[in-house]
C-alpha cells in the first residue's frame, strides 16, 4: 500500500457544494488585463482562476471561500477580483471541516 498523489480535480470532486446559478466572483476584465503578475493563478488552492488563450477565466463553482484571491489580487495584482460571500446556503459545504 503506498500513498498516491491526487489531482486537484479529484480532491474538489470529493467536496460537497451547493452550487448557485449566480457567481459570487466577478473580475473586472479591464483591470485584470493590465495585471502582469496575476497572483490569483498561483495562490488559489482550488485553481478557480485560469488562463485561457491569455485571458483570465474563473470557475466560481470550485471556490473554497478561503479569501486568498482577494488578498493576493489587492496586494500583488490590480484589485480586479470582486469577491463576495455566496448567497445564503450556497457554496462549499464542509462535511468534516
Amino acid at each position: 500500500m503506498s500513498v498516491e498523489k491526487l489531482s486537484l480535480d479529484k480532491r474538489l470532486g470529493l467536496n460537497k457544494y451547493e452550487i448557485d446559478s449566480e457567481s459570487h466572483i466577478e473580475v473586472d476584465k479591464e483591470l485584470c488585463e493590465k495585471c502582469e503578475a496575476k497572483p490569483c493563478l498561483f495562490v488559489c488552492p482550488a485553481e478557480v482562476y485560469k488562463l485561457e488563450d491569455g485571458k483570465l477565466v474563473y470557475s466560481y463553482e470550485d471556490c473554497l471561500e478561503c479569501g486568498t484571491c482577494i488578498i493576493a489580487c489587492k496586494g500583488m495584482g490590480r484589485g480586479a477580483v470582486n469577491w463576495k460571500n455566496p448567497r445564503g446556503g450556497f457554496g462549499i459545504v464542509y462535511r468534516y471541516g
Partner: protein
Amino acid sequence: MEIVVCAKYALDVAEIKIDPSGKPLLDGVPRRVSDIDKNAMEAAVNIKEKQGGTIKVVCFGPASAKEGLKELLAMGADEAYLVEDPSGGMLDTAATVEALAAAIQKLGSFDLILCGEATTDGYTGQVGPRLAGKLGIPQITYARNLNVEGNSVTAERDLEDAYETVKAPPPVLVSVTREINVPRIPSLMAILKASKKPMTVWKLEDLGLSKEKLEQVSTLRTVDLQGFAVERKRVIIKDKPVEEAVQELISYLMKEKALGV
C-alpha cells in the same frame, strides 16, 4: 384559493456513500427538502401573491422534517403539518399517500394540491397521481407553467414530444417540473417570520391511522439494494488515421447498442 403543498424531506443523495461491498450506507444520511417540491411551493406562493388564499404544507416523514418545513414556511407557506412516519422510511408510496390523504382530509376543503413531479431521492413520481386517484380528483402532471383564473386551473404539461395544455376545475392536483420557476431563497425577514408560523405534528393515530394499517397498504418490498460503481471503460483510440479511429468508435457504439441500431 386554498392550496395544499405536499413535500418530502428526502435523503440528500449527494451524501449517500457506497461501502466496499457495494451496499449503500443509508443510516445517518442527512435530509433536505426535495428540490422539486420547492418548485411546487414557489408555484403556490406565486398563486397566493396574485389571488390571495392560504398555503398549507403537508409532509409525511421523520421528526427531523420539521427543519425542512421551517424552510417551506419561510418560502411562504402559512401553516405546516408533519405526519410522523414511525417506520423510518421503510414504507412505499401507497402508505405515504394513505397518510397524506388522511392529513389533507383532516385539514378540510382545498382547491389545489401541488407537488413536485418526483422526489430527488426515490424519484418514483407516484405520490401525485396516487394521491389524486385516492382523493378522486383530476391530476395535471409535469406542469411547466400554471395559471389559476376564476374557477379553473390551467397548466401546460411538458410531455416527450408535445406541450399539452390541460384545464380542470378545482379541486385538482398539479405536479410541477423544475422548469416551472426558480424557487426563492428565503430572506432573513421571511425566516424570522416563519419561526412564528404554526407547525403541527400529527401522529398516525391523530389521523385515525396506525403503523399496521400503513404496513398493510404498503405492498412494495425492497429485496436488494446495490450501489453502482460508475467505472468508465476508458478505451482510448489514438495515433490512428481519422477514418479508422471513427470506424473503431462506431463499432464500439454499435456493440453497446448506443446508436439505436
